[in-house]
C-alpha cells in the first residue's frame, strides 16, 4: 500500500516538476503518433533540437495524438525514441489547443500559452529555426 502511494506521489511530483521547468519558457508542442510515418521521421530532429534549445528558454514537449492511457503513451514514446517530455492529457487540456487535423502538427506557444505558429506536416530543423528567428526568440 505504502509503495503504491509513494509511486503515485512520485508521478505527481514529476508532473509538477515538468510544469515548473517549462514555466516562463516558449514551448514547441509536437503532436506525434505511433502509426504516423512522418512523425517517426521527424522525432530524432526534435530530440536533437530539444538539446540545442535547452539553455535558451525554449522547451520542446510532445503530445500523443492517440490519447492512449499514460502508461501506454510513455511506453510508445520510449519505443519511438522520444527524448523530450510527453505531456499528460491534463497538461494538454490546459493548453486548450484544437486537436490537429493533420499528423504531425507542431505548435509554437508563447510563455503565456498563446499559439503564435502552427506548422502542419513533417518539419525540418531549419523550418523550426526559421520560425523561431521570425518570432525573434532565436538568432
Amino acid at each position, binding site marked *: 500500500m505504502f509503495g503504491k502511494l509513494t509511486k503515485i506521489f512520485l508521478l505527481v511530483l514529476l508532473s509538477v516538476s515538468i510544469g515548473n521547468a517549462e514555466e516562463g519558457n516558449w514551448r514547441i508542442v509536437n503532436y506525434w503518433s*505511433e*502509426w504516423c510515418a512522418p512523425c517517426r521521421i521527424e522525432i530524432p530532429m526534435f530530440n536533437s533540437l530539444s538539446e540545442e534549445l535547452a539553455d535558451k528558454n525554449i522547451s520542446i514537449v510532445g503530445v500523443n495524438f492517440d490519447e492512449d492511457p499514460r502508461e501506454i503513451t510513455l511506453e510508445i514514446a520510449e519505443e519511438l525514441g522520444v527524448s523530450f517530455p510527453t505531456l499528460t492529457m491534463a497538461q494538454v487540456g490546459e493548453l486548450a489547443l484544437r486537436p490537429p487535423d493533420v*499528423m504531425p502538427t507542431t505548435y509554437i506557444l508563447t510563455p503565456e500559452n498563446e499559439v503564435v505558429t502552427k506548422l502542419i506536416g513533417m518539419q525540418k530543423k531549419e523550418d523550426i529555426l526559421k520560425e523561431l528567428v521570425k518570432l525573434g526568440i532565436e538568432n
Partner: protein
Amino acid sequence: MKTENLQFLLIFIAVFVSNGLIAAPQELSEGSIEYFVSPAPKNSALSRVVSDKSGRIYLSWVSQEGDLARFEYSELMGNDWSNPETISEGDDWFVNWADFPMLSVNAGNMAALWLRMSAKGTYDYNIEASFFAAGARNWSEARIIHNDGVNAEHGFVSMLPMGGGSTMFTWLDGRNTKLEDGYGEMTLRAGVFDATGNKLNEWELDHRVCDCCQTSSALTAKGPIVVYRDRSENEIRDTSVIRHINGKWTEPESIHNDNWQISGCPVNGPSVSANEEQVAVAWFTAKDDTPKVQLALSADSGDSFSSPIVVASLKTNGRVGTAILDSGEIVVSWMDTTEADAVIMLSLFSAEGKLLDNYKVAKSSASRRSGFPIIEEVGNSVYVSWTDISSVSQVKVARLVFE
C-alpha cells in the same frame, strides 16, 4: 423602423425562406430516432454497422481485456440484437482508433478482417481475413490477404460485396515503403476473393497515396468505384476516385482540386455510396487550415461529379460517412466540434444536392478514442454506430427513419 419598411423586410425574408435560400437546420422530431440497447459490452469500441441486400443488419466491434482484443458481432433480430458471436481474437493485433476490423455480409456469406502485427516492436502489420461461406459451420482459418511477405504497414481496408458471394478488398499497402531509402511510397491495392477466401484477382490501383486515411468502395451500375486520399509528387493530398469498368481500372482522378498541400497524415478518409448510377462521395479537407466536409454527386456511375457542396465548415473534424436511401436522398455523417463535446451529425440532402435537414445523433468527443461513427442504409432508414466514451468505452447504435 417604418411599418412599410418592416412589411417589406418580412416579405423579403419570407421569399428567401420559401426559396430555400436560407437553410434552417432542424433537429429530428422525437420518436424518429431509436436508440438500441447495445449488444456490445463495456470496454468495446471500433464498431461498424453493416447490412446486406436483403436488409439484414449486423453490428461488429472490438472488445478488450488487457492485451487481448476480441472481434465480435451481433445481428439485429426485430428490435433486439442477437447474442454476440466471436469471429477472432488475439493479443498481437494492431488495434487503432482509425484503422480497425471490418465485417462484410453478402447473401449469407460473410468476410471479416483484422490487423495483426507482423514483427515485434515495429509498426508493421498484416491484414488477416476469415471467410464464412453460406452453409458453412465455422469461420475459415485466417489468411493474409496480401502476398508481398514484406513486414510493413497494411491496412485501412474497405470491403465491397460483389456477385456470387465474392468480396472486393481495397487496402493501403506499404510493401514499397521498405524497399527504398528512407520511407518509400504507400500504394493502393485491391483484390477479389470468393466466398471461401480464394483470391480471384489482385491489382495495384495507385503507386503513391496518402499513408493513413481510410479507403471506401461502392458498387455502381458500371462496376466498383473506390475513393481514397491521393498524394501527388508535390504533396497535394486530395480525394481521388478510381473505377473498374469493362474489366479495366480507370486512371485515378481527383474528385475536386482542393489543392490541400500537406506533408503529413490527416487520418480522415473519404466515403462513397452508390445505388445504380447514383453516386455520393463525401470527404474532409483543410486547405489553408480551414476544415471542411464536402459532398459531390454523380448521376452517371461516377463518369462525372457535381461541384462540391459544403456540408460543414470550420467547426468540424470530418470523420465522414455516406448513405443513399431508397428515396434517392443522401445522408452524410460528420462530426461537429462547435461545442466542447463533439456531436455526431447527419445531414440529409435531396438527390440533387439540396440540404433538407441536419440531425444531431449523439454527443460524442473530438477525442480519438471516440473513433469514427459509421452509417449504413436500409431502405429509407440509416443505422449509426459509434463509441460512447463518456464513462467506460462502449459501442452504441441507433436507427433514424427518413419517411
